[in-house]
């Protein structure tokens, strides 16, 4: 009897903490979304429904430029870091590769070091080499912090690779190039897509490394939002944030399978 009640208590405790954490995780986001439709300049209370901040968003040129910059950097850094990821993962596939250990260590170190250090070190590199900060330096920085992730995700997919398929194809007389394009690439494609998606998200999300490498005149969305919060011009940020949350939701829901690969490989 006593054991029964203890078990129940234990389960109840877990359910309670789960619910509380859910409330904790979602309350601020929900309030943000609700207040993006609030017809008031400050956040004191509900003054009626409006869409005017969404309309303002469409007229705001700075936000649109920041949005374009963010997308441009995210697409380019995703493309380049994914290509580098595929090449490196294929190179590391060879178990007898003499540089295997060195390359692996170099890939893992950026993952365990606080972001801010990569920001500072790149800022000093660009100062030392007298390179003007702007789009190019931001792109370099984003590729640098994405590569490790793309390599690790694609590599873990290659580790699960079933080589009997390749052997079967060889027995049937397939050429190495055919094997590569018709068997290997299609089978690791989910890993490649997962890696690209991860790189894209990381790039869009990054503030601190961009902050150190962007200089004046090249703002991404997170940089713009931080500046707007500091200046106190926050009315459009609610609506901008709501749209970005909506896009995230879309991404999470539509990429269920890909997400699984990301989780299992990290």
């Amino acid at each position, binding site marked *: 009897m006593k*054991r029964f009640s*203890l*078990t129940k208590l*234990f389960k109840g405790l*877990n359910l309670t*903490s*789960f619910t509380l*954490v859910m409330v*904790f*995780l979602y309350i*601020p*986001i929900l*309030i943000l979304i609700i207040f993006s439709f609030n017809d008031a300049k400050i956040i*004191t209370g509900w003054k009626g429904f409006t869409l005017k901040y969404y309309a303002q968003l469409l007229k705001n040129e700075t936000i649109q430029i920041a949005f374009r910059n963010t997308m441009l950097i995210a697409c380019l850094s995703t493309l380049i870091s994914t290509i*580098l990821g595929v*090449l*490196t993962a294929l*190179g590391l*596939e*060879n178990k*007898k*590769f*003499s*540089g295997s250990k060195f*390359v692996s260590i*170099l890939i893992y170190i*950026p993952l*365990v*070091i*606080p*972001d*801010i*250090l*990569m920001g*500072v*070190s*790149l800022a*000093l*590199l660009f100062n030392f080499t007298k390179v003007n900060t702007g789009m190019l330096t931001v792109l*370099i*920085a984003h590729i*640098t912090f994405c*590569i490790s992730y793309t390599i690790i995700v694609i590599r873990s997919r290659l580790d699960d690779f079933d080589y009997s398929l390749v052997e079967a194809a060889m027995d049937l007389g397939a050429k190495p190039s055919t094997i590569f394009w018709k068997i290997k690439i299609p089978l690791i494609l989910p890993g490649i897509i997962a890696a690209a998606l991860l790189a894209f*998200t990381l790039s*869009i*999300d990054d*503030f*601190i490394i961009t902050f*150190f490498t962007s200089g004046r005149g090249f703002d991404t969305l*997170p940089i713009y939002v*931080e500046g707007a*919060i500091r200046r106190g011009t926050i009315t459009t940020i609610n609506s901008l944030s709501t749209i*970005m*949350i909506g896009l*995230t*939701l879309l991404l*999470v*829901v539509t990429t*269920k399978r890909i*997400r699984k690969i990301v989780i299992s490989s990290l």
Partner: protein
Amino acid sequence: MKIIPENNPNYALQLATERKKNFTSWLLTAPALLWLIFFFLIPYLIVIIYSFLTADIYDVKFEFTLEAYRQCLTPAYLHTLFLSFRLALLTTLLCLLLGFPVAYYIARAKDKVKNTLLIFIIIPFWTNLIIRIFSWRIFLAYNGVLNNILLNLGLISQPLEIMRTDIAVILVMVYVYLPYMILPLYSVLEKLDWTLLNAAMDLGANEIISFFKITLPLARGGIFAGGLLVFIPALGSYLIPQLVGNQKSLYLGQVITYKVKNIPRNWPMASALSLILLLIVALFLIMFYVLYSHSKSRRRV
């Protein structure tokens, strides 16, 4: 691959193929390798060099000095280090305390619900960091939502001043880093052999005893991984203390950023502080590794 004895004529052929394969591997990994050498390793060399230079308002003067390190060891900066350390530690502990029951609950849920529950944890994780911080500013502000609710309920007579305090910083830190703790904990708990728990309970242990004797020790890997994923970024965080904290208690990330971005600049100090942070992180990684392998080997005996 078959092992061919040395006296076999095929041995030389195999050696040649292996050498060729090795060369191909170097070629394939070269782009990423060179990229990381140029944009990850060399920048740290520059940080090391800059930490020994003389500060200037806009730039550095190429004169050797240990001034930056001497300043880092003054009480003001040691206090910053202490604050950051305390913040990271508290964040990690609170995340573990909050995250464990959640991970446990999801891991023991029915397979059908599991994925949905996981999505709920992942959505905030994939939402833009700055947006999540901003949403807390709205929630906690002096005339914000929380104060309005509490005032209307009559629980307080005056608005609480939470924004721009250390409490707000901790709260938002836990909020942001919680998924980093829950996900590794979940992946360990999910693979856990629950029949062990059933066996223990059949033998008369209650849930609480079996939790401390079985679940917790077996989840060690997840606790270590989650701990590192929270503690290390928390040590160098800039955005959260900057947006919800105050300027009276500055954290390491803020001080480093100010020294790089604000005028008068002090790049040697930013470099020295960065290297100190790097050293602390390295020490922690080694400590975690030793503790983890020690606790693992002890279990086997």
